[in-house]
């Protein structure tokens, strides 16, 4: 496709992205200077897997890299003996040592090649090279079902044709005694001639760990581990059969279940079992009912929908007995009157019938799901140990109300909003006992003379932040009503013109958690990028997650924020029952800073038990003291406006009163012509008691700067009685 390549190249250069590797060129205009490609070109041949000089493996001349997945890198190559094009897949070194599995895979590959099925991607050769084991496969010029689905669901008439081809491929493989175990849209290629081909038959099990595999039970345990830990790599969980997800030995009927999930997705554009996390997806597969396909899209014939439902039965015995029976059923369906109706190709992915509105009681449902997820782990651990028979009591054919709404663009799907690149999830169970090195942060925070009483406060703060311990922090989620009020208040507070720039900032102190959501609108992408952070009572960040919402979606349904937040692990973690935190168990954690803010929360070190114990004693008194916020007068505030900071006016006000630091920082924003001010109140231990952002239009603020002082005094924290009761430590 040389024409396409040229076009992509032009487009990429416009975006200053390397046309070969997609890496951002930043200030480099010419992609021949792409640092990533230059580095690749500098690698010696044995390391050079992605550049042009990729050489020869056995009789195969490698031409170009055509893909990279969990299973390895794939090259287009030429078999120099026969002059034919082939695809060569190099398997990661992970598998290199697992010789027994590899031999077994070789046997299966031979068996498959003997079937001569036109619907299986044939493996011509298996070999070993310096780069590790490799597979030589048929070179297929086509599109995967996964890619095809990006353009919309597959019309029923086309579906009948494709599905029958797929079943025939599965039939041949099963007849040769090979089970796929990883059937999914990405593993099915439809060639330009409309021939469906299944790739990677039997390949997935090569990814099993290197422990000796022989016994089926051991294998089952391995699969279970894979299913729960490495599914992201394999990408198979949503298509796994219940018996596979539960870690049991699988037979041919497991492939039929996976085929059912693929069929479902081909017709509806959505998967029958979904969850915002792996565990929730497994939970859905094991115990939730799916929405029958004809209810997702009324244009899907009932008989076809019933066939898929039969494939998706949790009880393997209730599915089709084998691929032959499924093929027979598909042929029967092909004779039904609806099958001959022509359907326009490439229908957009918009099912006409929505199954259910998005659940308003999201929190209750999610809490229940979270409990179930924990239960699934325990359940699975138990199942693996005792290896009981697969449960067969659930009749999947009985339609029941869906637990999760379908993957409709107009329907919120929590998964879609999460921006995993923005940071790592902090599991509160894993981050205890860590100490923050606060120096860079305090450098910027400390605007106070050394001889002042505030300096002592800051010194204390520094000590405290360096020395305090992490304790169990109950996360108390906001309710929907509270959320509505907060979001409404924020909307009202922000001048209309500035909303797009500042997005939301929703700080709130809940229990002993400071809950903030802030972000911005990215005009080019027409989406909001938000950033949820939770701070514990020591002002320490215990959780963060990035979210992105399309502008249209968020404006239409602001509550999707709420749902996305509630789906985060930390709100589910609190339901872990009766598990006291033991501060003695220190585990490591790595935190990636979010954005490129000079974050105080990026550097951690370990402390010894003794040190921690001594700190505990020193701090226990402070922890139990009450905090007084005394707003007797704000007149003492010094207001400083520094106009010399690169065109931005900074404003810093600090007021140390009683035992709390009331601090305001902010600036005038040229872009929105508004004053953007942030009120923060810290207690004597550095605890972040309160935070509120105020945004004023330029005219409003400059005509009456007192508005700010009045608004501060009107905040919740100043309405409280004199003493702000600090939560007692939980231990």
């Amino acid at each position, binding site marked *: 496709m040389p024409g396409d390549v040229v076009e992509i190249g032009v487009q990429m250069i416009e975006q200053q992205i390397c046309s070969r590797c997609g890496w951002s060129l930043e200030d480099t205009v010419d992609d021949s200077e792409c640092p990533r490609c230059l580095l690749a*070109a500098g*690698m010696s041949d044995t*390391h050079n897997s992605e550049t042009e000089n990729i050489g020869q493996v056995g009789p195969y001349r490698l031409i170009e890299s055509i893909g990279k997945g969990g299973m390895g890198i794939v090259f287009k190559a030429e078999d120099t003996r026969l002059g034919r094009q082939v695809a060569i897949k190099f398997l990661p070194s992970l598998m290199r040592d697992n010789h027994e599995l590899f031999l077994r895979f070789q046997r299966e590959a031979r068996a498959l090649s003997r079937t001569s099925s036109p619907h299986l991607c044939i493996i011509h050769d298996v070999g070993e090279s310096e780069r590790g084991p490799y597979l030589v496969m048929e070179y297929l010029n086509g599109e995967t079902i996964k890619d095809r689905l990006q353009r919309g669901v597959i019309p029923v008439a086309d579906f009948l044709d494709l599905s029958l081809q797929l079943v025939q491929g599965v039939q041949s493989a099963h007849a040769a005694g090979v089970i796929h175990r990883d059937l999914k849209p990405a593993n099915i290629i439809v060639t330009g001639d409309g021939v469906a081909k299944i790739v990677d038959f039997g390949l997935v099990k090569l990814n099993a760990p290197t422990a000796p595999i022989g016994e089926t039970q051991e294998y089952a345990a391995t699969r279970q581990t894979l299913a729960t830990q490495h599914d992201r790599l394999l990408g198979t969980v949503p298509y796994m059969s219940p018996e596979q997800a539960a870690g049991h030995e699988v037979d041919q009927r497991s492939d039929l279940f996976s085929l059912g999930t693929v069929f479902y997705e081909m017709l509806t554009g959505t998967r029958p079992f979904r969850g915002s996390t792996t565990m929730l997806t497994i939970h859905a597969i094991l115990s939730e009912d799916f929405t029958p396909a004809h209810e997702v899209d009324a244009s899907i014939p009932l008989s076809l929908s019933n066939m898929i439902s039969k494939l998706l039965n949790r009880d393997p015995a209730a599915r089709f007995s084998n691929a032959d029976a499924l093929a027979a059923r598909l042929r029967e369906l092909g004779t039904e009157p609806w099958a001959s109706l022509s359907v326009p190709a490439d229908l957009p992915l918009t099912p006409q019938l929505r199954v259910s509105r998005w659940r308003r009681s999201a929190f209750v449902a999610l809490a229940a799901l979270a409990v179930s997820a924990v239960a699934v782990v325990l359940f699975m651990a138990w199942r693996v140990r005792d290896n009981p028979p697969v449960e067969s009591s659930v009749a999947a054919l009985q339609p029941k109300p869906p637990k999760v709404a379908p993957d409709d663009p107009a329907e919120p799907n929590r998964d879609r909003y999460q921006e995993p690149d923005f940071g790592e999830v902090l599991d509160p169970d894993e981050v205890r006992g860590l100490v923050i090195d606060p*120096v860079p942060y305090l450098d910027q925070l400390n605007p106070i003379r*050394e001889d002042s009483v505030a300096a002592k406060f800051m010194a204390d703060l520094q000590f405290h932040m360096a020395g305090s311990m992490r304790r169990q922090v109950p996360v108390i989620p906001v309710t929907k009503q509270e959320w509505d009020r907060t979001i409404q208040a924020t909307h009202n507070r922000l001048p209309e013109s500035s909303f797009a720039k500042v997005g939301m900032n929703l700080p709130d102190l809940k229990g002993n958690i400071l809950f903030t959501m802030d972000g*911005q609108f990215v005009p080019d992408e027409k989406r909001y990028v938000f950033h949820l952070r939770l701070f514990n009572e020591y002002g320490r960040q215990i959780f963060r997650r990035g979210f992105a919402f399309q502008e249209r979606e968020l404006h239409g349904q602001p509550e999707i924020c709420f749902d996305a937040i509630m789906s985060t692990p930390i709100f589910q973690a609190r339901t872990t029952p009766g598990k006291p935190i033991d501060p003695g168990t220190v585990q490591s954690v790595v935190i990636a800073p979010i954005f490129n803010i000079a974050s105080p929360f990026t550097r951690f070190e370990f402390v010894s038990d003794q040190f921690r114990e001594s700190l505990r004693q020193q701090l226990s008194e402070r922890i139990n003291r009450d905090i007084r916020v005394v707003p007797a007068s704000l007149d003492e505030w010094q207001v400083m406006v520094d106009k010399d900071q690169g065109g931005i006016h900074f404003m810093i006000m600090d007021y140390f009163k009683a035992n709390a630091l009331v601090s305001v920082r902010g600036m005038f924003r040229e872009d929105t012509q508004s004053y953007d001010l942030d009120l923060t109140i810290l207690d004597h231990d550095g605890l972040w008691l309160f935070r509120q952002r105020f945004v004023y239009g330029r005219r409003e603020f400059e005509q009456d700067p007192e508005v700010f002082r009045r608004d501060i005094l009107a905040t919740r924290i100043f309405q409280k009685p004199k003493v702000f009761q600090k939560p007692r430590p939980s231990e």
Partner: protein
Amino acid sequence: MPDFESTNWSVVRAVGRNATSHSRKAMAVMCQKYWQPLYVFALNRVGKPSDAEDLTQAFFERVIEKHYFEAADSERGRFRSFLLSAFQHFLSNEWKKDRAQKRGGQHQVVSMDGVAEIGMQSAASDQRTPEQLYEHQWIRSLLSHVMQRLEQEYLSAGKAGQFQVLRPLIVKEGQATYGYAAEQLNISESAARMATSRLRQRYRQLLSDEIAETIADQEQVASEIQYLFGVFDS
């Protein structure tokens, strides 16, 4: 670099123990090479270009004049990591004092939130951590240095024109581009192919040499290249 054959580690050790004008000069050259990655890191931390410049400059001044690397030990492994951790240490300890002195304890401190806002403004296009930025810039500096050396070699050999035409082919290949190069240089296509191959080979050697300067154990060159390559995908 005719009179600068030592590795970064040996320069560090020489300056650390007994600084001569020669070793200081060597150090100065080295600092020039690594100024940009540290500056990018500092900028990301403090948010203000002039502050970041001051800090980076102050760090290198200290490195050159004050035996800052006295305790450096090549056993620590990669110079890349060593330099960053030394710089982080410097930022943590020294910057605070410097600021207190320079500013006389006045209240003109950049608001933390202001810094955050600046960070946010560029966040839409760049979500890399300071450490990632440092490593990316490290790679750019490294490659730029290698390219300069390569160009210098071709220039000395009177082949500056050939270098200009073939340079893009270090990362590219294809019938059309060789043909174009051949046409430009007025040589046959196979000669162009051969010349590119030589250029690429020399480039690899120089890159390998350059990287070897930054590691303690020369056998780690391949793994360091692998690491640097992985930096782009992390």
